[in-house]
């Protein structure tokens, strides 16, 4: 099949004042069995033989589990197929003569590094703020000594499926990172190991999310609809509830300065 691509090209990072624009590419001989990234690989090989800069895009496992890849195809994060990362999207989802617009995630907290690659360190800093459990290491406890209900285990596992790709932020009309943050909060807060730090974790991660310059959540639901792992918005409601509990209904914690820092 033949495709016309309009791809965002940007040489310098946004953080260093880089500006970009769309460039048009015609791609012929696209096999329907190619993944979307393989189609771009073929285009890049051609660009390189022509002495041009290949299109920069992030990728790693190409199995839909690492969370590296992702860009917006015709207004949909990761393209038109639900619950699919762009590396697992195949060209059979498109038809001959399609015209596709490829854009990077657009958010202030995700500054563009080059072409379709954005800097998602803001996600890392949200995790650093509280997305962990502190445990004293020693010999592993007896596996059955810490009971976990099936319901909690299931919901924690669903939340833990988040691969941090950033599609939620990309599709949110407010560029909010609530779904990502809520998934990470819920994943740990639902499990016994996460209980000691449950409230301080929620508070710190929410404040870090705000500090990174993401927008606020207005419960549109576009985030969950494009999430390749189908993370549910009920996690956001849970995060809201625990944030309310942490700030309004809990006693000051040791070493807590009261500003959530």
């Amino acid at each position, binding site marked *: 099949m033949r495709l016309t691509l309009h791809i965002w090209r940007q040489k310098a990072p946004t953080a260093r004042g880089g500006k970009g624009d769309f460039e048009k590419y015609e791609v012929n001989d696209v096999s329907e069995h190619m993944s979307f990234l393989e189609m771009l690989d073929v285009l890049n090989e051609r660009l390189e033989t022509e002495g041009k800069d290949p299109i920069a895009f992030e990728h790693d496992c190409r199995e839909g589990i690492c969370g590296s890849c992702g860009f917006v195809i015709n207004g949909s994060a990761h393209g038109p197929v639900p619950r699919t990362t762009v590396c697992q999207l195949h060209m059979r989802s498109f038809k001959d003569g399609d015209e596709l617009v490829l854009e990077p995630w657009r958010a202030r907290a995700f500054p563009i590094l080059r072409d379709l690659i954005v800097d998602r360190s803001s996600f890392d800093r949200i995790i650093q703020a509280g997305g962990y459990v502190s445990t004293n290491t020693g010999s592993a406890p007896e596996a059955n000594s810490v009971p976990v209900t099936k319901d909690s285990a299931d919901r924690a596992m669903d939340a833990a499926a988040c691969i941090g790709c950033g599609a939620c932020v990309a599709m949110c009309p407010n*560029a*909010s990172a609530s779904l990502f943050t809520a998934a990470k909060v819920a994943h740990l807060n639902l499990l016994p190991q996460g209980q000691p730090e449950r409230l301080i974790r929620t508070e710190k991660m929410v404040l870090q999310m705000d500090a990174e310059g993401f927008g606020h959540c207005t419960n549109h639901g576009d985030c969950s609809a494009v999430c390749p792992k189908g993370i549910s918005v*009920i996690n956001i409601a849970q995060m809201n509830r625990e944030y309310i509990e942490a*700030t309004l209904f809990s006693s000051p914690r040791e070493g807590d300065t009261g500003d959530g820092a």
Partner: protein
Amino acid sequence: MNFLLSFWRSTVGAKVVVAVTGLILLGFTLFHMIGNLQVFLGADEMNTYGAFLHKPEILWAGRAVVFGSIGLHIVAQAKLVAATAIARPTGYRKWNAKASTIYSRTMKYTGPIILIFFVLHLLNLTTGAEFGFYVHPEPYLQDGNVPRAFENLTSLLGNPLWATFYIVANLALASHLWHGAFSMTKTLGLSGVRQLRLARVIASVFTLTVTGGNIAITTACVLHLVK
């Protein structure tokens, strides 16, 4: 008090303020609609009700709650909108809605429409300002200092232009509540799947009841069905 300041400054905290004040205002819209249905009972019932609401302690307690809620609702939301306005400096060339609705995406427009309506509504029917074809009924007051609610309302809404504006404002309110009345449950932490499904139904029924009642009153007045 640091914790309150921290709560207010956070996006989740400010949203909770919007949700709680929104919940109070939902109560007000329902109360206001049901009260005004008395227009169908006739002038005496409506004016007696108006006089009852004008008891100073009821009037000022009610006003404090409603004005306070509206003020906080707007200030908290304005703060959020201002911060979010810069969260995506470059927009998309193409963007497709996946789950969001026209109702959810127009909250920041339907809100101001409702505010404008609210201000004009108060000017006409509370302060008694005469403008835009609206002329007081004579006599304007009953029992000394209470406006004659029934004659006021039917006189204003007897005008097709005002009636149209009131209906448009109620459609904006319907759109605002359709999203807002459901969204607030998630903001306040309702996370059960079954409970949220129920909340969606309640929010929808509530929205249609309140705005449907208001539009029925307006329609009855403009068609001179109530006398």
